[in-house]
C-alpha cells in the first residue's frame, strides 16, 4: 500500500487538494445555510414547509446529471445567472470552481438538513423556552442550548455532507467538466484515468477514496450511537 501512494502524480495530488477544498467549503457553507433552514422546518406550521421539504429532498432522488444540466444552463454564459454576471463584468460560473461549489451545496443540502432537522425535533421547543424565561436572548440560546444539545446532529450533518461531497461525480462532470486545479476532483480524475486505460492510477485513487469513505462513515455511525446513548432528551 505505501508504495502505491508514493506513485501519485502531481495531477493526482492536485485533485486530492481540490477535492478536500471543495468538501470543506461545501460543508461550511451548508452548515451556515442549513442550520436556519432546518430550524425553520422544525418549527414552521406553514403550508410552504411541505414544498420546501420536498425541494430540499430533490437531490436525493434526481439523477445528478439532471441537476448538473439545469445548473449548467442557469450558470453558463447564456443562463439567467451567468449572463447577468457577465454584464456586471464578471465571469459566468460554468466550468469553474465557484460553479461546482454551488452545485455541491445544492447536491449535498439534504445531507445537512436531515440530521439537523431530526436533532432539532428531538430537542423540542421546551429547552429554549426555559432559556428564554431565564433571560437568554435568541443568539445566547443558540450557543448555550442548541449547539450543546444538538452537537450530535451537527457532527453527523457535517461529516455526512463532507463525505457525500467527496463522492460527487455527475453534477461536477456536467457543470464543471474536468479542468485540472479548477474542477478536476478525484471522482472525475478517476473517470479520466479509467477512460485513458490507466487502470493502476485509477485503482490507487479509487481504493484511497473507498477507504476514506469507509472511515468517515464508520466514525459517523460510531458518533451517532454515542450521542444516541447520551441523548438526554
Amino acid at each position, binding site marked *: 500500500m505505501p508504495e502505491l501512494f508514493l506513485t501519485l502524480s502531481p495531477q493526482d495530488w492536485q485533485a486530492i487538494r481540490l477535492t478536500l477544498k471543495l468538501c470543506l467549503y461545501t460543508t461550511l457553507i451548508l452548515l451556515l445555510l442549513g442550520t436556519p433552514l432546518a430550524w425553520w422546518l422544525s418549527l414552521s406550521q406553514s403550508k410552504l414547509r411541505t414544498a420546501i421539504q420536498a425541494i430540499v429532498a430533490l437531490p436525493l432522488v434526481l439523477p445528478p446529471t439532471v441537476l448538473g444540466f439545469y445548473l449548467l444552463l442557469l450558470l453558463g454564459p447564456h443562463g439567467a445567472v451567468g449572463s447577468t454576471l457577465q454584464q456586471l463584468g464578471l465571469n459566468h460560473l460554468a466550468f469553474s470552481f465557484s460553479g461546482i461549489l454551488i452545485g455541491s451545496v445544492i447536491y449535498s443540502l439534504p445531507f445537512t438538513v436531515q440530521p439537523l432537522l431530526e436533532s432539532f425535533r428531538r430537542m423540542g421547543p421546551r*429547552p429554549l*423556552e*426555559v432559556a428564554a*424565561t*431565564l*433571560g437568554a436572548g435568541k443568539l445566547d440560546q443558540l450557543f448555550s*442550548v442548541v449547539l450543546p*444539545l444538538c452537537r450530535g446532529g451537527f457532527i453527523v450533518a457535517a461529516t455526512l455532507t463532507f463525505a457525500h461531497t467527496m463522492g460527487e461525480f455527475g453534477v461536477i462532470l456536467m457543470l464543471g467538466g474536468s479542468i485540472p486545479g479548477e474542477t478536476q476532483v478525484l471522482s472525475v480524475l478517476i473517470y479520466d484515468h479509467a477512460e485513458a486505460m490507466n487502470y493502476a492510477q485509477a485503482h490507487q485513487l479509487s481504493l484511497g477514496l473507498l477507504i476514506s469513505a469507509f472511515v468517515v462513515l464508520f466514525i459517523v455511525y460510531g458518533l451517532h450511537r454515542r450521542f444516541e446513548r447520551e441523548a*438526554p432528551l
Partner: protein
Amino acid sequence: MMLAVTLTVKRDAFTLQLNNSLPLQGVTALFGRSGCGKTTLLRAIAGLDRHADATVQCSATIWQQGSRFVPVHQRRIGMVFQESSLLPHLSVKQNLLYGFKRLAKHIAVQLKPEQVIRLLELAPLLEQAPGQLSGGQRQRVALGRALLSQPQLLLLDEPLASLDQQSRSEILPFLQRIANTTGIPILLVSHQLDDVVKLADHLVLMQHGRIHSQGPLQQQLLQPELAAIGAMSLLHAQSQGSNNHLLKLSIGQQQLQLPAPQHANTASYSPTSYRLRIQARDVALSLKPLSDSSVSNQLQVSISGFNIAPHPAETLVQLTLEGQPLQALLTKHSVERLGLQVGQQVYAQIKAVALD
C-alpha cells in the same frame, strides 16, 4: 402587582376570551378543569406565545400591545413547567446559575445562590446531573433556578402535576417557604383543588375559557362551582405552642387541639400560623355543646346561609367562625330535624383537619 390581560384565542371547539385585571400578591391560583385555558393564559403572560390583538400589562409596564412585544427574556419572570425542564447538558449547579449569571449583572440581586440553596435544601444535589435526580428533586432545582433569575413574578404551570403523591408532599413545603420568605408574587396554575387550598391566598376560577370569578381563597371556596368538586373550608389559625404532641391553635377567642405535625422540617421551620383545611363533610353541627362525644374540637359558629350541594339529599350550611367562613355538609333531613335557621348560634364539631 397588577396584571391586566386582554386575550382572545380561538382553537377548533375552544375559545379563550379574557379582559381582566389580576391583582397579584402572595400566591394566586389559576384554577380550572384541564382544557379551560389556564396554561394558554399563563404562556401569554410569560410571552412564550404571541397572540394577535392581545394586550398584557404588568403594573406600569406594557408587555404586549399592538406591535409592541417585550420578548420573554426581558420580562423578568421565573417559570416552572409541568414536567422536568432542567437543561440536560448542565449540572444542577450550572442549571441553578443559568439565569442568575445572565440577569445578576443588570439588576440588583435580592436572592443570592447561597440563600436559595439553603431555602430549597439543594446543597447535596449541586454536582449531580439532572438525569440522576428524582422527579421531586428536579422540580425543586427548577424552582431554585427560577428564583435565582431574580424574577418580579413567578409563574408555576402545574409544577406538581407530573409528580407522585410522595414527591408532591415533599415539594409543597418548599413552595410554601418560597411564598412566605421571598415576597415574590406567584401565579400558580393547577387543576388540583387540594394543592390550591394548601398554597394559595387568592383564587382565580377559570371556566370554559373565561375567568368566572376571583377573590380571596376563603371566600372563593364558597363558590358552588368549587363546592361541586369537594366542598371544603380554609381557616387561618395561630399557634399557641404544643404539649404532649398536641398542637394548640387559636382562632379568635376559640381554641382547637390537633395532633402536632411530625414532618422532619417542623423543628427547623416551626410556623406561628397554620392553614386548616376542613372538608365540609367532616363538620357536624349540634344545638348545644356535646360533653359526651369523642370529638373534642367544638367551635361556636353562627349560620350565615344555605347552599345547594351536589347531592339532592344534602345541603351545604354556610357558617361564620370568628369572622372566617366554614362550611358543613348535612343532609336536608338533619337541617329540618334541628330546625336550623340563618343567624342561629350552633356548635360545630370538627372531625378531621388537615394542617399546612
